[in-house]
């Protein structure tokens, strides 16, 4: 489908599947504490959309996905999605060596989406909401611990 010149860049379905798999490698599930993988959580769209806000970020994303597709072929698979887990890790290490800036950028995008997801916040025991408007209850402090300081003579310098 032809894109209009002003349309935000977007991934095709194969790139989306690849990205979802990649996200699960970067942030895998930890079922024992209820944390889903970033790909399984459905964050690929959010990561792609965040990248699309800046052309240079989207270029990094597209380049990384293209390199992973090539690396998968070298490892004898039709796509990164089909690789065994250990081989995926090896391919990611190779990607890191080829394009050192790629994985950090992908991690920033992924972490930023993952750690504001309500399901993740809940699993972490963090209130699943923004700070405002409810805020947080913090009891007034007991300043008895200040007694030793209160007994101290003034120590600001005047001469």
């Amino acid at each position, binding site marked *: 489908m032809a894109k209009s010149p002003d349309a935000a860049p977007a991934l095709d379905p194969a790139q989306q599947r690849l990205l979802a798999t990649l996200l699960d490698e970067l942030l895998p599930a930890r079922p024992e504490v209820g944390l889903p993988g970033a790909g399984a959580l459905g964050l690929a769209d959010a990561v792609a959309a965040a990248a699309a806000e800046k052309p240079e970020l989207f270029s990094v994303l597209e380049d990384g996905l293209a390199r992973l597709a090539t690396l998968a072929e070298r490892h004898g698979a039709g796509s990164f999605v089909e690789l065994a887990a250990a081989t995926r890790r090896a391919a990611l290490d190779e990607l890191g060596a080829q394009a050192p800036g790629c994985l*950090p950028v992908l991690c920033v995008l992924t972490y930023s989406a993952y750690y504001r997801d309500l399901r993740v916040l809940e699993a972490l025991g963090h209130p699943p909401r923004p700070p405002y408007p409810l805020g947080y209850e913090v009891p007034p402090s007991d300043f008895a611990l200040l007694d030793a300081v209160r007994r101290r003579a003034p120590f600001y310098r005047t001469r």
Partner: protein
Amino acid sequence: MADDPVDVLIIGAGAAGAAFAWSLAETRMNILCLEQGDWMNPADYPTAGLDWEQRAQTDFAFSPNTRQRPADYPVNDAESPIAISNFNAVGGGTILYAGHFPRMKPSDFRVRSLDGVADDWPLDYATLEPYWAENDRMMGVAGLAGDPAYPPKEPTLPPVPLGKLGETVARGFHDLGWHWWPSDSAIATRPTGDRAACINLGPCISGCAQGAKASTDLTYWPAAIRNGVRLETRCRVREITVRPDGLADGVVYYDADGVERRQRAEIVVLACNGVGTPRLLLNSRSPQFPDGLANRSGLVGRNLMFHPYGLVMGFFDEPLDGYQGPTGCGLMSHEFYETDLARGFVRGFSFELLRGFGPVTTALWGLASGRVPWGRDHHRRYGEVIDRMAGLIAICEDLPEEHNRVILDPELTDGHGIPAPKIEYRLSDNSRRMLDFGTARAQEALAAAGARSSFVDAPLRAAGWHLMGTARMGTDPARSVVNEWGRSHDVRNLFIIDGSIFVTAGAVNPTCTIQGLALYIADRMKKNLDHLLE
């Protein structure tokens, strides 16, 4: 807007401009303030959304180069180890400041007499004391009386709660026998005027959606406007113009539509901060002032001081609830404030508590520091740090050095084509030694509080919040830009009231002293109206 002349034209509606305008309003003079930014809507502040941590790094970032809002101007700080932070709006830097509100101390005004370095101020602690107190009443300051690190003073509101994190760190200071005290905080800990009480949202440093933090759009400006001051927003001043006799006669500025305008004035008052003020003076060249307005001393832009920040984050075994409560307000320590040459440097530093990071910031910090990798081990390592970090910041006194300066960038301009500022700054050996000593003491304090390890970042690059010294005050026109009450030595109807006029920096956040000075200068003007320009 008509360009009928006004009595007083204030440039900049931040901490200083607001306090000054409010004070001078009682004269019933015709007072106008031009501000390059706009009014902020607290409902738009980041904490109302789940993306609050991302927005603190984008449209509410400290750096104008990152933020790139229409009101912002770029700053070339690429070669400085400390980057410029500011905010351009009604309220200025108080929109994003932490609200940490300590006064400077008696020795800060006498560093030449006491320590043989830099220069004494042409005024002293006692002179500013009533203006600090007046400012405290207008801003609302939470704290606790009885601190032996200061002459007696009375906060107007109960202290900000320490929370579990603050109480943990306080025990470290207690066990070491070091001074600590609840922060003086410009935060309404109970309902104050039209402001609601603080509900411990956390990141005061990306704007207070609750309106509990004392930003001057909420404190001084409503009162100043009620008293007749006019405030025009989205007006960026290009230059101050002068008459043939060398007095200032007004400004040329661009209005909200980008149209070039002229505004005449009897008195011009600069309140654009320690970078914006020298930028505007250097951009105001004329045959009478070929090196920039009010710059016959050659000191406009020079003696730039920051507070180099040494950040130490300690890692604890237990959750600290560090996302609850004002980020930068909790406790402070002045144990190492005054000079002790046995430490290897002159002057000193204060400590300020930094509460913990949110979930996204923790992950991104872990990524950048290498402590939290991606992949199979991510969640275990993330679990070791999330809500288990507490910070201390050593706020170091920088001494004035003429080679540290603001100049005009030869190429970079803002959206109106006005030359942008460039920062030339090197960290001095004294400041470096102070940072090393301060971060080592912070590690001790955190270890005493139970931290199993710690992480040091010094100088903290993002921490160029406090911009001082670039149009210093003094009695000698050859060694200062303004006199002891903010009037330019060279241009008798030009006043400067922001952090530019600081002679030295002290080792505390400067906002309450900036505002105290602005109130003091306004008071001097009111008392001398009949012979103001003599």
